């Protein structure tokens, strides 16, 4: 057994190295500094980068939301123009979903999955780095339009202004002639590529790199949910990829997919979008359900109640989630039978979701609930998610939804699931795992203050929106008249949003403080249950000195209760591994970054394909095509060199005192 582990190295693959590699220039080896971050293949560093960018965009999305709320504070307000307002809500929705919550989840996937499955990295470390940088490219493409507001000569027509689901035919060249829509199309497409690649990587990692003894039914629930989410991503994103290709063709090459004059049917966009879009909301919520399923047992000091059924219900949610997309289209005239079928399927989702809620309560029942900050956010999650879920059920009654669709009632529903659900769980997770990855605790007091401010602010903002919706206020309302009965609700919601913003601000300010000044902590400050708590905080590059053998669910909890046995096992593993040349680690690489830069150049220029290239007011090229092709070429060349370069690798050796030394070269 030990021998097999030793061979498995970081990827579980044979570590036989090619004798030589093709190389254009030397591989980066820096362990610190900017180069180390740009070329890293370490899942933890990549996770941090995802997390950092995501939080940045969360704050940007939040500021966009605050501008929206400020505009809606009083009736007939002219704080923001209608055009800018469209850009704001489009970018707020797109940012929060694609650039905040999804990458935050990706951050945790990266940080936790390899450690929770007892591996040294993901299955394809360079591919992982590629996903990250491609994501950054997508984020840039989506946001580049803002420049137009500051530098009018960059005439992109502002940020995208078509709503986060970009319903055709508004996306057609006749209705949004400017470039912002092209950037939106390409940006989302690129983000999709990033997510698919990352998810494939996680699927292989979770399925193939599990430590010995870690059967699927012993996987931590978070990892399970990450697996389901990854499947949802690879299966849902292709639908929107196709739809985006169609829009792109319509806009640039004269096709008729959504052009009514040519026989196109814009409703097809809606179907394809929501075939992706509905699974997408579960992509947003399943990982949070995973965090909560880790945090609740830790602080109730009791294993998760009904583990198999929690796992199974997660799979069921993912599966049923593919069959309900048209509940976003109840008002598009689907006909009675289709409407009925989708209404019933939608209701069915409440059952597996309910199962999860019940099992969380079961976990708390009989425990000793320690209300630390992560636990408070986790409990808040249950309460708020339940509210959001129940308003979802109200939507599923299709005829009633005819009154709610595209009203503030929907806004209330999805902010309850997205903030009260996904965001609360993410805030819980950040607080929970912060000590692990930074080695410092976040002060309880300020954590609790931020919790309460967020909790109160959140409800103050979004609870009134149910009533605004029932009172007939449509969403995407730039301004409203004063005789509609919406004045008080909006004013109150806006105050709530400011309070919420204050809470969020406090939360992150405290994190920043803790990063520098927080109290240092050990391996396992929360007395937790899964493998990541068995290793030092912050974790070393190689994660585990010895690949663990898993004997039970909650592997670390088992280790804590069977110390002697485990110590022996570990010593044997370390010896076996050293006799096989030490711990194999993957090499850093420039090519994922270069390939992404190629994609950026290609995407940026492709978006403006039919426009001339100007420089200092002079036309340089008749179209952007040559530049787009250059970018594509750069990307292909980088991928090619990447393939030739090979995974490379070096070895780490841990001596008896725990000192780590590095060696390069072939040990076989």
């Amino acid at each position: 057994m030990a021998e097999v582990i030793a061979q498995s190295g970081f990827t579980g693959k044979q570590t036989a190295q090619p004798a030589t590699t093709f190389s254009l220039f030397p591989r980066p080896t820096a362990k610190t500094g900017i180069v180390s971050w740009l070329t890293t293949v370490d899942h933890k560093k990549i996770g941090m980068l995802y997390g950092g960018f995501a939080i940045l965009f969360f704050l940007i999305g939040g500021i966009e939301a605050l501008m929206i709320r400020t505009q809606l504070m009083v009736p007939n307000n002219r704080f923001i123009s209608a055009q800018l307002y469209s850009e704001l809500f489009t970018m707020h929705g797109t940012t929060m979903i694609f650039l905040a919550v999804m990458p935050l989840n990706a951050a945790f996937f990266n940080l936790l999955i390899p450690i929770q499955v007892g591996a040294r990295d993901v299955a394809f470390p360079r591919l992982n780095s590629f996903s990250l940088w491609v994501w950054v490219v997508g984020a840039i493409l989506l946001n580049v339009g803002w420049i137009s507001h500051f530098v009018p000569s960059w005439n992109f027509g502002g940020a995208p202004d078509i709503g986060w689901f970009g319903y055709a035919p508004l996306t057609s060249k006749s209705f949004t002639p400017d470039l912002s829509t092209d950037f939106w199309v390409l940006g989302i497409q690129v983000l999709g590529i990033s997510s698919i690649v990352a998810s494939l990587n996680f699927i292989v990692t979770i399925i193939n790199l599990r430590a010995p003894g870690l059967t699927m039914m012993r996987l931590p629930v978070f990892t399970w949910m990450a697996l389901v989410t990854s499947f949802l991503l690879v299966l849902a994103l292709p639908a929107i990829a196709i739809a985006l290709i169609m829009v792109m063709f319509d806009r640039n090459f004269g096709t008729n997919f959504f052009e009514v004059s040519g026989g196109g049917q814009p409703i097809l966009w809606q179907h394809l979008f929501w075939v992706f879009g509905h699974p997408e909301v579960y992509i947003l919520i399943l990982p949070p359900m995973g965090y909560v399923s880790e945090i609740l047992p830790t602080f109730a000091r009791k294993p998760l109640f009904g583990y198999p059924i929690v796992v199974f219900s997660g799979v069921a949610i993912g599966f049923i989630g593919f069959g309900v997309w048209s509940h976003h289209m109840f008002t598009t005239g689907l006909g009675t039978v289709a409407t009925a079928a989708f209404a019933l399927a939608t209701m069915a989702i409440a059952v597996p979701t309910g199962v999860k809620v019940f099992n969380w309560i079961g976990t708390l029942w009989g425990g000793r609930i320690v209300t630390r900050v992560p636990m408070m956010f986790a409990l808040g999650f249950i309460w708020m998610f339940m509210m959001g879920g129940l308003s979802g059920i109200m939507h599923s009654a299709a005829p009633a939804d005819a009154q709610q669709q595209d009203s503030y009632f929907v806004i209330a529903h999805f902010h309850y699931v997205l903030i009260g659900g996904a965001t609360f769980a993410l805030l819980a997770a950040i607080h929970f795992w912060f000590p692990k990855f930074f080695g410092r605790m976040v002060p309880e007091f300020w954590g609790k203050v931020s919790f309460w401010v967020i909790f109160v602010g959140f409800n103050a903002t979004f609870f009134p929106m149910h009533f605004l919706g029932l009172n007939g206020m449509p969403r995407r309302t730039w301004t409203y008249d004063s005789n509609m009965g919406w004045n008080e609700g909006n004013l109150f919601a806006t105050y709530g949003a400011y309070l919420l913003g204050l809470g969020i601000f406090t939360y992150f300010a405290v994190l920043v403080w803790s990063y520098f000044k927080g109290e240092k902590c050990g391996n396992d400050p929360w007395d937790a249950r899964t493998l990541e708590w068995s290793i030092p905080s912050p974790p070393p590059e190689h994660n585990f000195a010895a690949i663990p053998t898993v004997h039970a669910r909650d592997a670390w909890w088992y280790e804590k209760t069977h110390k002697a046995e485990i110590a022996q096992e570990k010593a044997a593993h370390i010896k076996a591994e050293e006799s096989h040349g030490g711990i194999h680690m993957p090499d850093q690489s420039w090519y994922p970054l270069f390939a992404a830069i190629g994609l950026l150049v290609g995407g940026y220029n492709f978006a403006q394909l039919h426009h001339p290239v100007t420089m200092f007011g002079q036309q340089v090229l008749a179209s952007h095509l040559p530049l787009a092709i250059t970018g594509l070429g750069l990307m292909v060349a980088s991928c090619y060199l990447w393939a030739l370069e090979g995974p490379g690798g070096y070895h780490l050796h841990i001596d008896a005192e725990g000192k780590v030394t590095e060696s390069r070269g072939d040990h076989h």
Partner: protein
Amino acid sequence: MSAPTAPALAAGHHEPSKFHFYIQIAMILAVITGIEVVLIYLPIVKWLVVTTLIVLSTVKFMFVIFYFMHLRWDKVFCTILFFIGLVLAGFTMFALMKLFASDAGKPLTAAALDFARTTLG
């Protein structure tokens, strides 16, 4: 079917060559394709042709994935993995076709033509 049984897999030994076996499969595939093309010109009832075509292409599909793509010899998990995508895609296609084939799914132009046909003629 005359296909040889799966070669026994003793770890650490070269498998017997599948060369001839593959060629046989390819021949079967080619023949099926031929049948398909002929089929569409035969004066048989439409539903039968459609069903046969679907069955035949499914057979081809299965031959390729199970033999050329080795699913038959690989761990069953590969098959499961692929079929998750396949089944979901099939299901989504089916649902979309149903949605657009229904009366409510007709585009206005088609609906208008239909209307004219039923009320005027």
